[in-house]
């Protein structure tokens, strides 16, 4: 119903090229996902300004929310989806997405070349305010290569520098640093390797070269007790573009752990 009425025509750019209803239905930008989710634009994509009658109108919004899910994803059950919409569009306390200050971040899978070998590295970016505006900043990196280089171990398995080493001017460092598989064992308790620094270092040294972005997703923690992910679906039909690709009930207390899981920690 909504999808067919999306097929409005705007100023023509050229000749008529056939049915464009799929393009109208498509959530064409992440920006449009925000505007549709919040009901901040008309069906033909023209933005409402705060103060307009329909701006964030809850009744119209319900129709939008309904079409913002990947319809082919069976793990997003009808029931789960309806619960989510009811929560988000709750008349007394509705939740709207906030582009600049909301809790959300991007996960970018990128292909790099490491000394002739291809590898996928996951880059996590979030928006940060700086001077007059905002920018995306790298705040986390995951690479299988880095994590296998620095495996996390139980403390019983860890090597150590014995407590009287100081008497010998730490001459056993010689052995410790030759044992490259266990280097991280000698670090302080709670030591966490910083993969972002490792990435920057490798690129600066010229060992690692960026090739291409292969996938982009966004993770949202802006709705109380919910987590959802959006991804872009480039396919035929009306259910396409930026859609909710994953949805889960996550209590606020468990969100931090969930985040670690997303960071592949």
């Amino acid at each position: 119903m909504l999808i067919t009425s999306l097929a409005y025509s705007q100023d023509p750019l050229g000749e008529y090229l056939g049915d464009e209803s799929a393009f109208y239905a498509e959530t064409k930008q992440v920006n449009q996902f925000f505007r549709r989710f919040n009901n901040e634009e008309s069906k033909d994509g023209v933005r409402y300004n705060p103060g307009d009658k329909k701006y964030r109108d809850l009744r119209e919004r319900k129709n939008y929310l309904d079409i913002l899910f990947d319809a082919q994803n069976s793990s997003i059950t009808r029931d789960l989806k309806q619960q989510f919409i009811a929560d988000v569009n709750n008349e007394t306390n509705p939740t709207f997405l906030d582009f600049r200050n909301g809790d959300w971040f991007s996960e970018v899978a990128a292909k790099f070349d490491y000394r002739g070998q291809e590898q996928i590295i996951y880059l996590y970016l979030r928006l940060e305010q700086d001077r007059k505006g905002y920018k995306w900043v790298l705040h986390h990196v995951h690479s299988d290569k880095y994590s296998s280089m620095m495996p996390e171990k139980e403390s019983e398995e860890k090597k150590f520098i014995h407590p009287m080493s100081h008497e010998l001017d730490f001459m056993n460092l010689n052995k410790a640093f030759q044992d490259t598989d266990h280097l991280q064992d000698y670090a302080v308790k709670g030591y966490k390797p910083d993969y972002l620094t490792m990435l920057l270092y490798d690129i600066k040294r010229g060992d690692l070269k960026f090739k291409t972005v292969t996938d982009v997703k966004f993770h949202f923690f802006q709705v109380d007790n919910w987590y959802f992910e959006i991804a872009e679906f480039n396919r035929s039909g009306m259910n396409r573009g930026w859609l909710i690709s994953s949805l889960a009930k996550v209590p606020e207390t468990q969100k931090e752990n969930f985040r670690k899981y997303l960071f592949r920690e």
Partner: protein
Amino acid sequence: MKSIKYIFTGVFLLFLQLNTQLFAQTNEPELAPGRKAAIDSLALEKVRDLSKYISIIGDKETPFSEANRVIERAMELFAEGAQMGVSSLNSQEVKYYGVRTYFRRLMALNYDKVKISWFNIQYISDLERQPDGRYVGVITIYQKFEGISEDGMKYQDTTKKDITVFVERKQTQIGGRLIGFWDVLLGDIRVSETTQ
């Protein structure tokens, strides 16, 4: 006499440019919706102009010298260093080219006939401010490309183009008047093959 005139014009243009930099505004209040809408349509017009230039460059009927001239005009629409990021349906891998390289490739395409047309649909994002105070937005449009080779083989694709638009309020002096204008420049373009 004529050369003096040109020197004067040159000096004038230099003056204009210097002024542009001098008067570049640092701070301005939130824009009224009417002005925002005017900037949106100005940005959209630049995108349409680009579409037209692409059609001329790709057209086999366009003489070589004309195509080159049009490439220069099209380049004027872009901020420095703008790139195209192109991917096909078969591969998620994005290939990156400079905009000029993209135009040259388009001009040199080995088809007997090329037809580039555009769908009516367009989508204009919000304008967000970046740290240096410039505004940035993205305009999405859809293009259909058809190429027929000498042996009659037809290739066609539909692409979605997400075009970066940088918008900056500047001021300059013309004829003794202070003119406030919007400098709209196109940036990187993400081109992804799509199904209609």
